[in-house]
């Protein structure tokens, strides 16, 4: 490649990524030269500033038409922009959690890494959102995954953390292997790694039965491989163990940013590749994605049931939230299965709502966990008496997670629910499972409420809420309620700026 050609690319569209990369590099250098005894918290704040700057620069590109550079491997379309906002805001909140996380179990030694590894993971996720090529997509995925592995095990002297990291590495390895296997089939059939070219080739291929059969196998392999990232059943089993053992900010990262990235990649690959290939040789046949949607629906149903039902048995709140997070992935899969007019909106909105309600919940889990020294649900007994505002905050977030009207969670579920009915034929079974399992979820969500409001407190000690956590709490509650009462804020933003994602395949 000529240097001139290289300089010809419109590198500016990568500004948000460059900022994150730059800040991550800066942090690692600063960490190297800072005296050992110095508090590393300042690095965290620099990271926060970096993410904020990246968000602002991304906002500057909102009106930018679809642009791609590096031979269409990196593209900035509305899909990428919309989801990058979620990734950035999510990481911003998570980093704030990390700043106020108590540095124990050997974490103090690696406090610097603790901050900039979040940034590299975020960078990977952002690349996934923007990738127009399987190679960039895969590299983004690996950057995210490997950073997360280290983060899970970053509290070195905590056995549970070590165990979690090990489990995560093994399961992650399996997931990557299966994904790559699936992707290699698609490459083999189309002879290209570029997603747009792939969809073009497949659309005109017409395909023999055998080719389509192979493509279907690729469909399953890729779906299963990526399902690990979403933690959907039955590929979810790593999640509870890893969530429990990881430091709380990392758990929040996995359940918010990492999951969002998983959905981004799955939508990107499946809609553009399998959404364009006819399921049979016939010209007017359904796209393969719709033809095989029952399988995704099956996974969605299983995920909602397993996530919500097993959550009933959990006493450890982090494990409970792991299962709840599995269940929420199931809800989003319902939207993905139905592939209705609403699907993109519904997924985007749900992830945004989920970001707010979940990050706030994890902030409280971190706070209470550090105070009580345990993540057992009994640590929440009498929280209302000890810290009424904290308890009410948690209650709002839990109500939202349960999908009670007036909160963002309700609007999110309503969207998905309406989407499931908006297709022909309607997905009645999935919609009923969604409702029934939501009812089941009330039991464990209200279990926490009962602890907080109806149980006597063990002691009367008050909480000191660090500034960073306070920001997260206020942000999450305001977000949850605002999106619940005035969801049009988000939908208008989406519709005004992203043209219903029409440029997805351009």
């Amino acid at each position, binding site marked *: 490649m000529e240097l001139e050609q290289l300089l010809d690319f419109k590198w500016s569209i990568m500004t948000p990524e460059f900022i994150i990369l730059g800040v991550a590099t800066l942090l690692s250098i600063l960490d190297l030269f800072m005296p050992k005894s110095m508090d590393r918290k300042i690095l965290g704040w620099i990271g926060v500033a970096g993410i904020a700057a990246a968000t602002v620069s991304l906002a500057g590109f909102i009106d930018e038409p679809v642009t791609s550079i590096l031979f269409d491997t990196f593209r900035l379309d509305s899909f990428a922009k919309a989801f990058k906002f979620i990734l950035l805001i999510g990481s911003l909140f998570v980093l704030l959690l990390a700043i106020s996380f108590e540095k124990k179990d050997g974490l103090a030694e690696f406090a610097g890494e603790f901050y900039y590894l979040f940034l590299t993971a975020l960078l990977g996720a952002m690349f996934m959102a923007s990738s127009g090529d399987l190679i960039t997509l895969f590299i983004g995925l690996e950057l995210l995954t490997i950073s997360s592995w280290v983060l899970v095990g970053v509290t070195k002297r905590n056995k549970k953390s070590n165990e979690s990291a090990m489990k995560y590495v093994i399961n992650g390895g399996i997931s990557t292997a299966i994904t790559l296997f699936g992707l290699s089939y698609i490459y083999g059939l189309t002879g290209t790694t570029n997603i747009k070219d792939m969809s073009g080739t497949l659309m005109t291929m017409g395909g023999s039965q055998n080719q389509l059969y192979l493509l279907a196998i690729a469909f399953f392999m890729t779906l299963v491989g990526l399902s*690990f990232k979403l933690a959907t059943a039955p590929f979810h089993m790593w999640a509870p163990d890893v969530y429990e053992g990881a430091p709380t900010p990392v758990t929040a990262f996995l359940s918010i940013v990492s999951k969002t990235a998983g959905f981004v990649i799955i939508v990107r690959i499946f809609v553009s590749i399998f959404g364009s290939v006819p399921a049979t040789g016939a010209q007017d046949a359904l796209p393969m994605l719709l033809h095989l949607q029952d399988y995704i629906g099956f996974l969605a149903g299983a995920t909602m049931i397993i996530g919500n*039902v097993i959550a009933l048995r959990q006493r450890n709140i982090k494990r409970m939230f792991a299962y709840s997070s599995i269940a929420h992935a199931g809800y989003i899969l319902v939207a993905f299965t139905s592939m209705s007019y609403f699907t993109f909106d519904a997924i985007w909105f749900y992830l945004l709502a989920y970001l707010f309600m979940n990050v706030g919940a994890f902030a409280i889990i971190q706070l209470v966990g550090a105070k009580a020294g345990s993540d057992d649900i009994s640590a929440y007994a009498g929280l209302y008496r000890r810290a009424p505002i904290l308890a009410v905050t948690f209650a709002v977030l839990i109500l939202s997670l349960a999908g009670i009207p007036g909160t963002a969670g309700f609007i999110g579920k309503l969207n998905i629910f309406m989407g499931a009915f908006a297709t022909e034929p309607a997905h009645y079974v999935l919609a009923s499972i969604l409702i029934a399992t939501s*009812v089941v979820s009330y039991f464990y969500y209200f279990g926490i409420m009962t602890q907080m409001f109806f149980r006597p407190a063990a002691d009367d000690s008050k909480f000191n809420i660090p500034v960073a956590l306070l920001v997260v709490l206020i942000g999450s509650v305001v977000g949850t309620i605002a999106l619940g009462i005035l969801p049009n804020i988000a939908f208008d933003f989406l519709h005004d700026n992203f043209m219903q994602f029409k440029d997805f395949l351009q």
Partner: protein
Amino acid sequence: MENAWIIPLFPLLSFLFLLLFGKRFKESSAYVGMLLTFASLVYSLLVLFERFSSPTYKQEGVWLTIGDVQLTAGFEVNQLNALMLVIVSLVSFLVHTYSKGYMHGEERFPVFYAYLGLFTFAMLGLVLSPNLLQTYFFWELVGVGSFLLIGFYFYKDEAKAAAKKAFIMTRIGDVGLLIGMILLFWQVGSFEYDAIFAAVAAGEVAQGMITLTAILIFIGAVGKSGQFPLHTWLPDAMEGPTPVSALIHAATMVAAGVYLVAALFPLFTASDVALTTIAVIGAITAIFAASIGLVQTDIKRVLAYSTVSQLGYMMLALGSAGYVAGVFHLMTHAFFKALLFLAAGSVIHAVHTQNIEEMGGLWKKLRVTGPLFLIGTLAISGVPLFSGFFSKDEILIAAWEGGHPILFLLAVIAAFFTAFYMFRLFFMVFTGKSRSEMKNVHESPSLMTLPMIVLAVLAVVSGYVNTPWFGTFLGDWLVEGNEALGHGHVEGPAWIMIVATVVSLAGIYLSWLIYGKKSLSRNWLGAQTLYKVLYNKYYIDEFYSMTIVKVTKGFSHFLRYIDTYLVEGIVLGVTAFVQTLGRLGAKLQTGQVQTYSAVAFIGLAILMVIFALTGGYL
């Protein structure tokens, strides 16, 4: 009326204010709540009077746009809404006042008032909603308020369990409501009541779909209004403070189900199957709950079952196309049942027990509560000239004219039961020997008696707004300008009124013979002069106690058995199933990575095998 949206905001303000500053105000919090609900009441009355002379007012704005679907939010003041506004704000205000005395000395006094504010806000918001989605919003919020108030005495395990049960049982009904609502949305393209009615009237919705959605929505009402078989939460909910029972579980929230059916009445009338379902469920509930009420010994539980039974009456009325009858009974019931609960609270306040076996002879000690309780009892028993008489009569006429002779018969029997157990309650509590251990019984403070007096007046006079004798103002007004709601008043045969009167008096008489007769037998002279008559009466008494009472008692125990073991059993069974599933799933979570990978691979294999077996494309 343009500003009717302010009405729910007063209690909301009270809620927020007390939540933030309640601790500082201590028991003066009550005045904040009282003042603000009084403002709601005044405003509601103004709206009601304005509604008499002007047409329905509705204002809406776009709330949410998804694709090309627009969802609106706003408020509507039609006849039903205006009436409900007054009922809710009035009862709420009276309960606020009453609680100042009843909850005196309670440590979490401000919290109680804050919750009351939240609940009142939600309930007022509910009745102002012009569309199903908004209704659903407030419907759930009402549930949350009720959850908090039932569990107010959270240190009692029963209260905690009851709160949770109430929330979850009603949620089961809500699932029906939600599904029905969304289905209707896809048929009609709108959540608006008006749009739904227009589409139904224009025949745009298939008949089967109307029936299905109507029944699904009715399931929501079944949960909220404690209809069979989702009624079991309501008696348990009596663990909450008594003023709460009066507000939520007598006058407002439980009536929300009836209100919902009434608000969507044109939808229901479009389907005969749905109407018949409502009528049958209503009648079954009425008689089922009334018979259980016969053997209860807890004063509040008797009232709870009587509430369930009366709500069944309202449903029966609506199901028999008696829109006016249902709404009319909803109104009168709100007054006399709230009165009964508050009076029961006053009794409990005085004697510190809820067991009626331990009470007696309180008439002389509770000089105010006693007569007030009697008025409530007369009203609910359907004694002529009291409000319950007129509204129950309307329902019986509606059931008869609606062509349901069997349901009519059930309703008559239930009326007999009602009169019987209500007077049993009255005689056991207020007549007979006073217990020695109840020496220090005092009448409640005037803060508590005044609200009861207001309700007692209403329990007497509220019936006269719709009578066959003096005119059917309420009925005519309610259906004005809306033919889908039927006629204001259906002329029924005169014998129905006579039957209703006879039945109610017979119930009272029988109850007197059994529970009041002790005082008679002590009066030797009276017994001698009336010996023969008394003998015969005694004979009847024996006869009754041997046959009807025994049989009904047995039947009642049998139903109670079904209630405890079958209905709750099914609930428990479902719970146990879910729990077992959870346990199995958790067991699989061994902590071994090998297991996890194996499960994942099996999952992948299953997907592939299914794909291969179903043939894929081959």
